[in-house]
């Protein structure tokens, strides 16, 4: 893509916003419920492909596209959640991985419908009332979605629902004493997480105006995990901070050398050995006060 100067900054900022929503929603499952999911790329890709398929095959309306992306992602979240949430953490992790890879291979093999490894391109960024062909025009809309999502996610974070989810993650046995259904709360949390991950995916598809199967690959699912760890899973803004750092690092290293995986790996090692609470935890410790 031919980006230069300001356009590139806008592109990076867009990426940041999308990843921020993705990682923050991921944290509902990872940080609140304390379940490691390797399958969130499933919802992300579902959101992306939902937009792509609807707008290129049926109705070229981006808003409807976003709606269908979210719908598909949430549906899948309910289905996958129903099947996986009853299992213990390690099998849960592997099952989510399996489902993500299943979706990936589906996207890859179903050439006629999903475009196979070439994916789908030419996603229109237009709706009934407006067309946002340039990225500068898309940015404000993206920002609105970003703001709305973060506000909603924050509302979940401070709500009774969020508190209950965190309690569940903290100590599942104790949660049972509340008389509430463990499974139902896990599923609801998973659903909300899938919803926003799907939204992030939809917005991503509209940003690039193309989708390819690799966004469903398990390595994509690891990205929100890394971002959350980077920033700190115990903070609401942790995943966003992590997303910010991630975008900066990957862009910097991608421009300097192609060995961003190495850099990411080293950063991850440093985090795991020295700063498991993430950057925000480090900051808090150095600052001496609580956030």
């Amino acid at each position, binding site marked *: 893509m031919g980006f230069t100067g300001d356009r590139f900054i806008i592109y990076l900022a867009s990426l940041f916003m999308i990843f921020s929503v993705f990682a923050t929603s991921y944290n509902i499952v990872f940080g609140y419920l304390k379940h*490691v999911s390797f399958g969130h790329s499933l919802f992300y890709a579902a959101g992306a492909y939902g937009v792509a398929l609807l707008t290129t095959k049926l109705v070229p309306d981006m808003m409807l596209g976003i709606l269908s992306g979210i719908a598909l992602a949430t549906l899948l979240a309910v289905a996958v959640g129903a099947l996986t949430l009853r299992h213990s953490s390690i099998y849960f*992790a592997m*099952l989510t991985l*399996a489902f993500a890879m299943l979706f990936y291979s589906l996207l890859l*093999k179903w050439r006629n419908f999903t475009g196979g490894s070439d994916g789908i391109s030419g996603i229109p960024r237009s709706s009934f009332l407006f067309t946002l062909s340039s990225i500068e025009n898309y940015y404000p809309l993206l920002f609105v979605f970003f703001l709305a999502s973060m506000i909603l996610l924050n509302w979940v974070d401070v709500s009774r629902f969020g508190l209950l989810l965190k309690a569940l993650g903290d100590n599942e046995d104790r949660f049972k004493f509340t008389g509430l259904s463990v499974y139902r709360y896990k599923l609801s949390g998973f659903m909300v997480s899938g919803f926003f991950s799907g939204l992030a995916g939809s917005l991503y598809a509209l940003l690039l105006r193309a989708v390819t199967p690799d966004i469903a690959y398990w390595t994509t699912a690891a990205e929100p995990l890394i971002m959350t*760890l980077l920033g700190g899973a115990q903070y609401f803004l942790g995943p966003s901070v992590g997303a910010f750092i991630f975008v900066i690092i990957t862009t910097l290293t991608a421009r300097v050398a192609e060995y961003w995986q190495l850099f990411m*790996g080293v950063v991850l090692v440093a985090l795991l*050995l020295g700063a498991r609470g993430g950057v925000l935890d480090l900051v808090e410790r150095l600052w001496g006060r609580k956030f």
Partner: protein
Amino acid sequence: MLETILYQLFTGVFRASYYWLIASGLTLIFGVTRVVNFAHATFFVLGGYVALTVYELTNNFIATVLISALVVSLVAVLSETSLLRPLYRIESIYQLLMTFALTLIINDLSKFIWGAESRSIPLPKELSTIVSVGTRPFPLFYFLVIGLSIASLFLLYYLIEKTFWGLKVRATWRDIFVAESLRINTRRIFTATFFIGSLLAGFGGATMVAFTPVAPGLGDSLIITAFIIVVIAGLGNLFGAFVSSLMIGMLESLLVLYIPEVDILLIFVIMTAVLLVRPWGIFGER
């Protein structure tokens, strides 16, 4: 028709041998240390890369394979002691993430050292001699790999079930706290397990480059297959992993022939089905 199927099945057994060389270490490491080693297929691929260099230096196939396997296991041991050991006392997810980080690092380092194109080493003449199974020709190499894999299964079995050291491993496997209270040095057992598992993987990778070129990214897809094999069998179950490798290897070979579009999909469906119905694996115990 039948002959084609038999041919494919035999090729499948050959593939399965490679899967076994990865899956064995993976399941062994998990059984003993409870660490899901994401980096295990990366060790396998690393074995292939190291073999490229060692072969250039020695021009001897046997030496290449042995030395490469050793190098890989040393890398694994180094990683385990420096990176994983500090994390043993906290939740296992961090260990899993560390192995993931290890994969990223080794992947890029491999690209850096050996470049991004696919490379391979030539098969020594003795192993290229054709042996016929029915009317189909196979290089002797196939039989060697299959034979060595079966041998490794029995070696592992003997090591773990019949030796005193193996007893300590089994104790650690069963209950690490009790094992430690019996003054078994579980740290050393962990490291030794990594050594053995990675030795097999490195060995596999080193022999693989003689007939298939190694390329970056090979590990990413291999680890998934290895996971499926191990999970279907039951994490920590060695014999199960062997049978499972055979099943998957042969299934893949047959599908490639008849319904190529479905291959990855079907295998994932199988894994999902097994995990949903019998999450402790076909051969595992609750």
